[in-house]
């Protein structure tokens, strides 16, 4: 690490694209050419002209050759320029780009294990959760239809990171993306956190950042499950409903030593639980305890226990198996629109020994990107990491300090 550096690119600096990375085409042929090359997710794309890509890089103050991260298993170096090209194609406005870059920086941390997360037959999405003032500045949606369509920032930020996975990491089918089914979140899955009810901190504060900071949390997730409880006024009953969803045996990771979950609390449920005096820590501990399952419950669903394989499925002394390894494996996000009493959750696609959620702080407007130049001009993400970043895969989550 060489410490804080000046912005690595001054606005107005001419683009420095390598000749092999640009092509000249008839504008009318753009969509057909990009689809034919396999560069699109199936939807139309915005032409990544030199000017548009340059504007994207300028908005973040990044030079084209800045290294956002690497995937050593694929011998891939992901530059700011490649991220910018895919962000333009996704339809991002330039002001979204610092969020896209930070999300990619998180995805490329070893703890996330991008190599496997975009390859596995389990078909994980690259779930992006944004917390903090940036959500308002970018007019992101945290309320009604938060998991649905209709908001440009949510839709295009999520689409941009997936296009990078497709075009730079080779996550295509056929190709290196072995998803047996995948799910619609693999087009885009990006949400904003809404302000929590009184008594609860927002996610970024729980992770150790300041209330005026903004953060990005990324997790490789299955598709979202909606959780309905429209009648129970008591916090315990609401949380039992959450636990019943999370422990459902059809989810691959249930009972396999512990995975992580993004728990999206709708307004009624968050208000009811917080009003009874349950802290976020209380909720996390409750969910860890009440999602433990017995071998009999799994057997009743036809699920066999692994023996002598990678997942530890020996029941503990109480005869139960772990689903969530620790309170630190539960990410609480308040969002969604008011209505009858809905929430949702997204399980990570595999136990934590394989991959972990990662959170990074988003640089403040005009804040320089610190660099470490050991292997080229690389963003030093350690400056943006929470006080206790997640352990690499293979090490169980400990507690909220690593959330």
């Amino acid at each position, binding site marked *: 690490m060489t410490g804080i550096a000046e912005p690595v690119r001054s606005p107005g600096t001419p683009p420095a*694209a*390598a000749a*092999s*990375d*640009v*092509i*000249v*085409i*008839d*504008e*009318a042929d*753009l969509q057909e050419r*990009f689809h034919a*090359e396999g*560069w699109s997710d199936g939807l139309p794309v915005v*032409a*990544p*002209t*030199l000017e548009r*890509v340059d504007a994207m890089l300028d908005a973040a103050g990044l030079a084209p050759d800045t290294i956002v991260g690497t995937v050593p*298993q*694929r*011998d*891939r*170096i992901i530059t700011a*320029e*490649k991220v910018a*090209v*895919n962000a333009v*194609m996704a339809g991002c406005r330039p002001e979204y780009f610092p969020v896209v870059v930070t999300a990619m920086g998180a995805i490329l941390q070893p703890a996330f*294990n991008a*190599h*496997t997360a975009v390859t*596995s*037959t389990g078909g994980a999405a690259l779930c992006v959760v944004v917390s903090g003032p940036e959500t308002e500045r970018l007019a992101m949606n945290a309320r009604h239809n938060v998991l649905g369509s209709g908001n440009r920032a949510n839709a295009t930020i999520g689409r941009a990171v997936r*296009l990078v996975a497709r*075009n*730079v990491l080779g996550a295509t089918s056929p190709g290196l993306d072995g998803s047996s089914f995948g799910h619609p979140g693999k087009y885009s899955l990006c949400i904003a956190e809404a302000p929590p009810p009184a008594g609860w901190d927002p996610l970024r504060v729980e992770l150790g950042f300041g209330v005026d900071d903004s953060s990005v949390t990324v997790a490789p997730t299955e598709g979202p499950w909606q959780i309905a409880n429209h009648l129970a006024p008591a916090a315990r009953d609401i949380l039992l409903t959450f636990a019943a969803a999370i422990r459902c045996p059809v989810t691959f990771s249930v009972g396999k030593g512990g995975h992580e979950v993004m728990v999206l609390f709708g307004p009624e449920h968050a208000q009811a639980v917080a009003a009874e005096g349950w802290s976020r820590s209380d909720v996390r501990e409750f969910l860890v305890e009440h999602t433990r399952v017995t071998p009999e419950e799994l057997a009743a669903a036809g699920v066999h226990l*692994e*023996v*002598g*394989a*990678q997942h530890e499925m020996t029941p503990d002394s109480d005869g139960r198996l772990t689903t969530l390894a620790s309170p630190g494996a539960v990410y609480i996000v308040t969002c969604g629109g008011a209505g009858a009493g809905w929430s949702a959750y997204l399980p990570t696609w*595999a136990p934590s*020994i*394989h*991959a972990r959620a990662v959170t990074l702080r988003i640089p403040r407007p005009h804040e320089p990107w610190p660099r470490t130049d050991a292997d080229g001009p690389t963003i030093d993400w350690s400056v943006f990491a929470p006080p206790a970043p997640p352990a690499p*895969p*293979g090490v169980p989550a400990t507690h909220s300090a690593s959330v």
Partner: protein
Amino acid sequence: MAQITVHRPDVADDRARLTPLARRVALTPGAVVTIIENGKPNARALLAKVADGLRARLPIVRVDIHSKPSAALAITADEAKAIAARSHLVITGVGD
């Protein structure tokens, strides 16, 4: 028709190049063949049978199985060096 200049979104200069096959050599008595097992259910049992088959066909070699704790994680560089140092042939890339 208007022409535009656009960036390629992929990696035109693919740094992952094909690696030429190693030179073929005859296995001598005592040669070690290592099979890397990825930790998935039944992988070890299946590969143990493969190892038995190799031993039956090539009685002059020793066949080892190296188990990974997670199918999602590559072996470490130190593990790779140790395996390479003691093996004459390594079979890896065993998937689902």
